């Protein structure tokens, strides 16, 4: 993923991050701040206070019925949602105003082309619009796929010239209420709302850390003022891409290109919950025959959590063996600052996917004992409605 040529793209807030970041690096063609204070202190800060992440490399966009569509309310929403449902297995038509859903773009074989968020705006005037955020490394092909699928029925308007900031952690609500609007306290997990502050903000209560928090779309010309206002709060520090990865790993969340790719179905990825009943019954999404069969009979492989029983981290690509036979592979791995221990995710044949199953991880040629464990490694602390 993220095949790019030419010079790295700079974030609109590049100058702000240059002040505090120790390391920058290429991610999906963007020159991203990887590390500020250090991976572990940044990770722990996010779990105890609030971290501010610049995720402007990602792919936010608006997908809307053409102007003058003449539809209102649910009717307008269902019309635009029906178009995107041709590509995803989630019940998008069923979204309430202001609701966000996590789903995947599927190929005809039921493999995941990306994972993404789709939101129905809360504002009645925006009925017939969807707010969508896809991954950085896949955004070009995702946008093309969505626009092509829609044809003249709807328009995709990229918003990746704006900034996307994630504020994550137990202090996120207090900070957001103080800096942006008291009304942010009333939002619950997986809701979206527009705020006429710092230009105009589109804010979802969501994130990629397992913590409560918000993801904030802000126009580039207002982004510095917003970021500086958030960072001025005593509970907020900037967090790099390195800690973003260890946080999402502890939270047991998929990273596209690791836990998800075009060969992996949502069922194998243990994401059956993203396929709502209406879509299962209708069986009208790409790859439905494979996916519904896996739902009924169980998939042949499954995403699992793994705890090495010694201290050696098992990273992406490490082979998983049981009784000398290869049964899977690690897709992400590293060190959990909260558990003070190595953790991994990976895929194993379903027969070996039950928590408590002992496996061997082949690290630099040496088998090391590990155990299948339930996900997440660290409990989510979302603000549920």
């Amino acid at each position, binding site marked *: 993923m993220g095949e790019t040529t030419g010079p790295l793209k700079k974030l609109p807030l590049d100058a702000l991050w240059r002040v505090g970041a120790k390391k920058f690096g290429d991610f999906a063609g963007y020159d991203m701040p990887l590390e500020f204070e*250090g*991976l*572990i202190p940044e990770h722990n800060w996010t779990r105890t206070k609030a971290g501010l992440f610049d995720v402007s490399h990602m792919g936010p966009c608006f997908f809307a019925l053409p102007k003058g569509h003449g539809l209102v309310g649910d009717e307008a929403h269902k019309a635009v949602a029906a178009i995107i449902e041709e590509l995803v297995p989630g019940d998008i038509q069923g979204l309430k105003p202001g609701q966000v859903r996590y789903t995947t773009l599927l190929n005809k074989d039921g493999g995941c082309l990306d994972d993404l968020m789709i939101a129905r705006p809360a504002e009645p005037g925006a009925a017939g619009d969807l707010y969508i955020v896809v991954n950085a490394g896949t955004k070009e092909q995702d946008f093309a796929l969505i626009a092509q699928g829609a044809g003249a029925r709807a328009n995709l308007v990229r918003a990746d010239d704006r900034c996307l900031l994630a504020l994550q952690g137990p202090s996120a609500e207090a900070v957001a209420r103080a800096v942006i609007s008291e009304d942010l306290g009333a939002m619950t997990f997986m809701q979206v709302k527009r705020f006429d502050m710092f230009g105009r903000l589109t804010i979802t209560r969501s994130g990629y850390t397992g913590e409560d928090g918000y993801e904030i779309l802000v126009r580039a010309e207002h982004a510095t003022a917003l970021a500086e206002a958030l960072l001025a709060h005593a509970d907020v520090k900037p967090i790099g891409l*390195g800690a973003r990865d260890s946080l999402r790993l502890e939270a047991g969340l998929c990273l596209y290109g690791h836990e998800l790719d075009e060969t992996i179905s949502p069922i194998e990825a243990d994401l059956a919950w993203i396929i709502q009943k209406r879509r299962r019954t209708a069986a009208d999404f790409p790859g439905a025959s494979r996916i519904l069969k896996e739902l009924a009979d169980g998939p042949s492989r499954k995403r699992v959590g793994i705890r090495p029983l010694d201290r050696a*981290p098992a*990273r992406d690509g490490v082979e998983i063996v049981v009784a000398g036979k290869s049964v899977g592979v690690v897709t992400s791995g*590293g060190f959990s600052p909260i558990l003070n221990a190595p953790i991994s995710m990976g895929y194993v044949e379903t027969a070996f996917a039950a928590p408590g199953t002992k496996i061997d991880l082949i690290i*630099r040629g040496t088998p090391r004992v590990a155990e299948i464990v339930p996900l997440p490694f660290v409990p989510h602390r979302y603000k549920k409605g």
Partner: protein
Amino acid sequence: MTKKYTKDHEWVRIEGDVAVVGISNFAAEQLGDVVYVELPAVGKAVKQGGDMAVVESAKAASDVYAPLSGEVVAVNDALNGNPEKVNEGAEGDGWFVKIKVANAGELDALMDEAAYAAFAKA
């Protein structure tokens, strides 16, 4: 006894016929938080520039090469439970192994402190 350094950021200090070996302060700082060190078995024969150990930081695994040829006569077991010792004192308590030096002449290929400081800065 003065310390010498490799271009791969290992240090070595000679104590009699034994070399104490670790990774440099500069390397430890670059790696960030060390979470695991895989040390060789005592008795293992190592070759100058060959694989000797692996150091894992929060973000990645890095190979550590033997600065001199010889036999591993001791390893720093304290790193098993406390890998953070590498960050706290990479050129002190965070040493990795002791090697019985096979060929003291190999030291000539290594940098002294001043040369290494200039190398690390470049």
